[in-house]
């Protein structure tokens, strides 16, 4: 196949790319702005450096580039991001026209990325700006790819298998591996059952996903771009909504000479683009019998560039979220304010870009807004907190807003002249104070710029161009406005540690019927609780139900000596535990003191998280964190099928543990 791409990394730069870089160097030499720490020539040089030593496998190379984006110096991180975008098929271009770098073979020609905006993309990604999966789905709907928003499950299903096909395009493998690796670095996995509230896409992931879902593909050619003086006719040449045929051969047209879109290989070989993200998404939707969702996907053609460029430009609107303390404790005395936490959101427009105006490509005609604090903008606040239980008067949150600030949560907070907005929150008061174990919780606060506000008026940033291009500008404007107002801006979060006193409640509970091939034993059970953590003591009951007759019959089959007596039996249990070992405990002996029912408590190694999950135990759902396993043994043996193994769960409330009361004061 003529256009089979050689493994990336085998050669660091193709002759074509080297040529393009040379062009960039020439072009940048003509500029008078050398102060920009991430100027395009430095970016190109950095891309060359970060490529050195990368693995040949596209996925592994992408992982290393992701590490570089997140960990290296800002300059090197920007270079790594640019190289990652290039290897993912996205051309890197300058706002004035020259092409910084082209992909090796397959190019997403609708999605050139402005080199000048890459530092902002990196900053926002490292700062953990986030788009929910639904926000990204909204972008895909806004550009016309889908007729309704894809669900969380559909998007994550598509991403899970994307770019893993044998012989697939390296740009798919690179982009897909990068998206997964970026989530992996946050301890997240994109799969349908992942927590929708906390699993998100960062800006770099969003650019890759939107570009790959909506762009058309071309093949990189060997033509050398020749920049010429920029004329009015060049301004809208490029991709995006205002796509137009090049006639002038100016700087904006240089990009068009670097690829072809009607290559016979692409047309003749349906497998050439197999594994592309759009098809993955369509496949995920198709599983649910909703093929019509993609019926109008051609409407998205040409819109990717404007969408991702506008989103990247908006990343210049920085929200920095800080707190006057990283952790607090429940109050021991009503009226105290020492435990209060003040959150401050600082909104600025702070994009480091030399250009005053974007001359070419999808946002041609857009003026770069002035940097500075964003005054009078609305900050929206929300919080996500682990489950405290329901024993607290007035709610179960670790932190709530002080009454004076309650309106800021419901209506938003306006930034002042310094671009700042604050929110004061407080924990409840313990009663009695300081009693019990010290427990750990957390509260995460999210701040976002109101989606009705933008750091500038959209109409102001689009220069008025007359003539035949006015319509194209208007189309770009409409698209960008629609995408941004529907998807909104990325948000920022901060997590506050909250310690408090109370019972550290561990519940080990389960019951089941022993099903063997020829025998059945009715209900055996254990119900234990520790109010002082996994070291115990655990107290409770254990035993069996069912009729003695049944037990005798099955016990004979099993060679078990059941206790004498009536129907069922119950034993009171109390024993300490060693968290580092299996803890076998006697539940009850059989006739003649022979071994009958025992249990084993074992605990997992200490985990790095206390995040609660939903745990199903004996058909009852619990909210808590599994910390170990309880196993019931019959005659010293246990069930090979695991039917008598149950989760041991740390929970927040149990009637057998003394409750510390918590109530909010009026401070």
């Amino acid at each position, binding site marked *: 196949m003529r256009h089979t791409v050689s493994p990336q990394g085998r050669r660091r730069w193709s002759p074509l790319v080297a040529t393009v870089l040379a062009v960039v160097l020439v072009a940048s030499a003509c500029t008078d702005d050398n102060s920009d720490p991430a100027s395009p020539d430095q970016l190109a040089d950095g891309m060359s450096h970060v490529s050195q030593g990368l693995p040949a496998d596209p996925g592994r190379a992408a*992982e290393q580039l992701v590490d570089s984006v*997140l*960990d290296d110096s800002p300059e090197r991180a920007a270079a790594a991001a640019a190289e990652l975008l290039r290897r993912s098929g996205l051309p890197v271009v300058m706002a004035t026209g020259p092409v910084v770098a082209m992909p090796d073979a397959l190019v997403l020609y609708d999605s050139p990325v402005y080199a000048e905006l890459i530092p902002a993309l990196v900053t926002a990604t*490292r*700062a*953990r700006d986030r788009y929910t999966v639904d926000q990204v789905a909204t972008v895909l709907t806004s550009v016309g790819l889908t007729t309704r928003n894809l669900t969380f499950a559909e998007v994550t299903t598509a*991403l*899970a*298998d994307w770019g893993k096909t044998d012989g697939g395009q390296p740009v798919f493998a690179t982009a897909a*591996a990068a998206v*997964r*690796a970026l*989530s*992996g*670095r*946050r*301890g*997240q996995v994109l*799969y*349908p*059952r*992942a*927590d929708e509230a906390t699993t998100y896409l960062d800006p770099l992931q969003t650019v890759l996903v939107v570009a790959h879902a909506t762009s058309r593909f071309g093949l990189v050619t060997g033509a050398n771009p020749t920049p010429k003086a920029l004329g009015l006719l060049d301004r809208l040449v490029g991709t995006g909504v205002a796509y137009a045929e090049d006639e002038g051969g100016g700087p904006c047209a240089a990009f068009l000479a670097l690829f072809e879109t009607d290559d016979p290989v692409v047309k003749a070989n349906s497998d050439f683009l197999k594994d592309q993200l759009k098809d993955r998404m369509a496949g995920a939707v198709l599983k649910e019998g909703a093929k019509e969702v993609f019926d109008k996907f051609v409407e998205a053609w040409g819109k990717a560039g404007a969408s991702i460029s506008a989103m990247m430009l908006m990343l210049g609107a920085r929200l*920095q979220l*800080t707190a006057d303390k*990283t952790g607090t404790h429940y109050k021991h005395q009503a009226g105290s304010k020492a435990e209060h936490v003040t959150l401050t959101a600082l909104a600025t427009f702070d994009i480091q870009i030399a250009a005053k105006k974007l001359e070419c490509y999808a946002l041609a005609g857009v003026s770069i807004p002035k940097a500075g604090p964003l005054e009078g903008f609305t900050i929206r606040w929300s919080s996500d907190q682990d489950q405290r239980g329901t024993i607290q008067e007035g709610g179960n949150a670790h932190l709530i807003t002080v009454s004076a600030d309650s309106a800021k949560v419901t209506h938003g907070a306006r930034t002042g002249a310094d671009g700042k907005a604050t929110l004061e929150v407080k924990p409840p008061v313990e009663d009695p104070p300081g009693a019990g174990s010290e427990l*750990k919780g*957390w509260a995460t606060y999210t701040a976002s710029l109101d989606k009705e506000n933008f750091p500038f008026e959209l109409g102001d940033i689009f220069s008025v161009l007359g003539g035949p291009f006015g319509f194209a500008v208007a189309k770009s404007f409409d698209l960008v406005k629609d995408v941004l107002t529907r998807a909104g801006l990325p948000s*920022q*979060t*901060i*997590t506050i*540690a909250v310690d408090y006193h109370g019972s550290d409640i561990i519940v080990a509970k*389960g019951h089941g019927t022993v099903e063997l*091939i020829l025998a059945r034993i009715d209900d055996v059970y254990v119900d234990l609780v520790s109010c002082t953590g996994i070291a115990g003591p655990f107290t409770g009951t254990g035993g069996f139900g069912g009729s003695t007759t049944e037990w005798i019959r099955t016990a004979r089959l*099993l*060679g*078990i000596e059941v206790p004498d007596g009536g129907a069922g039996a119950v034993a009171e249990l109390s024993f300490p535990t060693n968290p580092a070992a*299996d803890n076998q405990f006697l539940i009850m002996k059989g006739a003649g003191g022979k071994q009958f029912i025992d249990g084993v408590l074992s605990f*997992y190694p200490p*985990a*790095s998280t206390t*995040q609660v999950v*939903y745990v*199903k*135990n*004996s058909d009852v759902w619990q909210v808590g964190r*599994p910390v170990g396993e309880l*196993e019931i043994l019959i*005659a*010293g*043996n*246990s*069930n*090979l*099928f*695991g039917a008598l*193994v*149950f*989760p041991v769960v740390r929970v927040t409330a149990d009637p057998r543990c003394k409750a510390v009361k918590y109530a909010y004061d009026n401070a």
Partner: protein
Amino acid sequence: MPTTTRKASVLAVTLSAVLALAGCTDDEPTPGAAGPGPDSGTARVSVTGYPGLYYDESAVAVLAGPSGQVQLTGAMACPDLDAMLSAGQWRTIDRITLPAGVAGLARLGGVVPGLLLQRGDGLVFVAFEGVGELCTGTVTQVQRDGIALTGPGFPGSATGWAATTSCIRVNADRLNVGVYFDTADKIGGVVNTPMVSQDGKYTVDGASDDLGLTVLTHASHVLEVFGQAYAAGGAVEGVTMRILRPGPSFAGTATVEAGEADRPHGTISLSGLADAETGAEASVTLPFSCPAVQVMTTG
């Protein structure tokens, strides 16, 4: 009538670093990342020893065992744990799912639900087991060498893979080993081999009902079609299924190499097998490796 003993402790699992900390810091302050809640670190959370095999906070325990074995326990159903592990950088090569309600009995025959995952040259099998309302996925490396199938229609010495799915010790002298395997010739299957130990040597008990060898000639993925056949109770379209039983000249040996007693590994050699339908003779040689052994005692 046998009773069973499930010994999790037999696994002798050791505590490993739950988080594969990448040791990274951002240059810019990221105040939002502080604290113990979700999204609280910059670590890439991969299964230790298997970069790119990601897990999230739903995994409540991750324990590294011998021979590269890792157990993940998730507060979720097994299909969800399957989805999480297959959503990382590893590619799903094959997958076997079983009908609800048969997992326990199937396991006794070496048939377990699982995933075959590949990344580069790495190939691992993940066996799933519902443990109460949790699910445990056991990640083990598959074996690539020493596979041979001889007889009419068989490839002889073959390239492929073999994954040990279950090792159950019955009393002190008997070891049942289940193995999935497949070859580049698209002939694979599942074998359950009862071995009897005497004087340090293992022979295969050809008279045992536990001995079973199912060979599938297929066009796609052996685990997928075997799962379909298991659910359907017979062969599925496009797949030739052969049941091999000990014939008149049956001989079976198992070479168990020196090593720790609770982690036997070696080679199973079965000759004189007969096709239950045609009577054609066949021989099979497969590697096996038990990173853990469950113990079953007779009552």
